[in-house]
């Protein structure tokens, strides 16, 4: 969820800043996979489950919504 939101926001954001679409997409994938690994490890080591849900679901949803808002401005 968090990685999806990140990839969507990073792709839309970098495209908005002038990067070619597939370049933005590929760079988002590269960074997104590293983020996924980091967050996966953190989710198991985090002291509170509620915090994990807040970051994964909340952060992911927030970034996905921002990506859609940005897209609506661009199209």
């Amino acid at each position, binding site marked *: 969820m968090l*990685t*999806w939101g990140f*990839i*969507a926001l990073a*792709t*839309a954001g970098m*495209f908005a800043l002038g*990067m*070619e*679409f*597939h*370049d*933005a*997409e*590929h*760079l*988002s*994938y*590269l960074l*997104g*996979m*590293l983020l*996924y*690994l980091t967050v*996966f*490890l953190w989710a*198991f*080591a*985090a*002291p*509170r*489950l509620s915090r994990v849900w807040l970051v994964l679901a909340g952060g992911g949803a927030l970034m*996905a919504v921002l*990506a*859609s808002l940005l*897209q609506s401005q*661009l*199209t």
Partner: protein
Amino acid sequence: MFQSFRHAMTWLHTWFGLALGFVLMACFFFGSLSVFDREIDRWAIPASRFAPQPMPSFDKVLRPVFEDMKPSQQSIEFMRDKVNGPMPERFDTVRNWGAYTTHRDPMLSLFAGYVVPNAKNPDDGVRGNRTIDPRSGGALPDDQLKVGSGFLYPLHYSLTFYWKGLGFWIVGFAALMMLVALVTGVVMHRKFFREFFTFRPKKAVQRSVLDLHNMMGVLALPFHFFFAFTGLVIFAGIYFPVSHTQLEPLHELHEQHEAQTTGLPHDRAGVAAPLASVDDMVREAQRRWAAKGMAGEVGLLSLRHVGDANGYVSVFRAGTDRIALVGDGIHFKASTGEVLREDPPRTAVDSLNTFLTGLHLQHFRHWLLRCLYVLGGLMGCVCIATGFIFFVEKRKKQHAKQGRQGSRIVDALAVTTVTGMLIATCTILIANRLLPASLPSGWPPRGDLEQYLFWAGWVAAMAHAFWRSAPVASGQPNPAWREQCWAVAAMAATAVGLNWITTGDHLLKTVGEAYWPVAGVDLSLLVCAALAVVAARKLALRAAAVGSVNRLEAAHA
């Protein structure tokens, strides 16, 4: 939640490593074999045992073959529920033709896509494939399986389990777990540097296996991390299809913009047009590459909107001399041969992406590096296999006392994964040499039958591993390890013998002629057989030693 960060990482390493290790081992092993997939193809298809060929003349050789091609029955069946009304009888509108080769391919792969007028999604269509001898244009029988590039290669990234794309997802999750296992492994082990040099084979099994597990893990850590990571990046579009779902409008905007800036038509014009000489276009592309100081052969030839006024021909360079997976494409108007576009220099992001992808897929010519890739992949297999053995050795005596079956099951699955995978591989090679060229009517196609026998060999190895696993429940080794090592040795040697008998290509001949694709496969099989014999003998000695200790204990009890 866990007591500490290190506890959490240890738990992740043990349990996710165990659960996904079985898949990972298959990915690493078949990925290693895929490094020489084209060479395995030549071993499996004796008609293709000649030197790699450059792209042949389109006008003289390829065009008549393309015009004769039709969509495959399999592709039509796949499309059947994606059309409005009945499936058309004929497919006259060609969407694209393509021909692809590398510096290791004697045979040439052709593919064609056809428009289905009543498709629910206009972008969907049906496809046809053909493999030809580029010297004559003669086709290979449709049911000849390219065991390397057509089976073992897709096995390492999809498990050839295509239902709902599930195989890709399982492998993707396993690749993520490989990254997790590497990071958690480093966190768990405080003496990281010392583990580069620590292997004590004379110590107890549990100790020496752990040494080997750590050593393989740390020695090849960058290799393992790179391949698991780039594997995920290559298929990221499947795992996170953001551009074709949430960001589809943005993607569509980009497509329209790209069609305008590149001048390459996105759609057909609906007006018929002839096709100019493609050979002339290829010559012009090669002239332009040479002028840029990068003379080269054609790797991919692609024609879009065939027979239409908007048709264009793209000529891509073979990536034999560079790591980055790039084509430096030059695009021509199909009806006139006029240059429409030359691919611009790559951006920084594209350079990074094509370099990472190219390093994983290795289309470049570098035989030593290719061999080192296999070594790195097999080190990954050793790392995972020793992880399984350590898991069992650490717990089996305790489980025996408690009457639990955990170690027994894990051990049987480890046998299935390690030696069972070798048995399955030898089975497909033996089947490839033993099945007749044409099978009686009503039988499955020859290539399908080879794959069924591969899976049957693997299932038989699994059944044997579980059937012989009872001693593990009392803390003893499973004799299936030793027995399957003997089976591997016999089957690998049989495959080499069958290659000789059925094709006349024995090792003295292939080595004498320096025909390394076939000699290399035979030699690898013989090395595998020799190692299996050594392993079987060592296991037999160990079993005898354990047996005498048990007898002594029983006598003193």
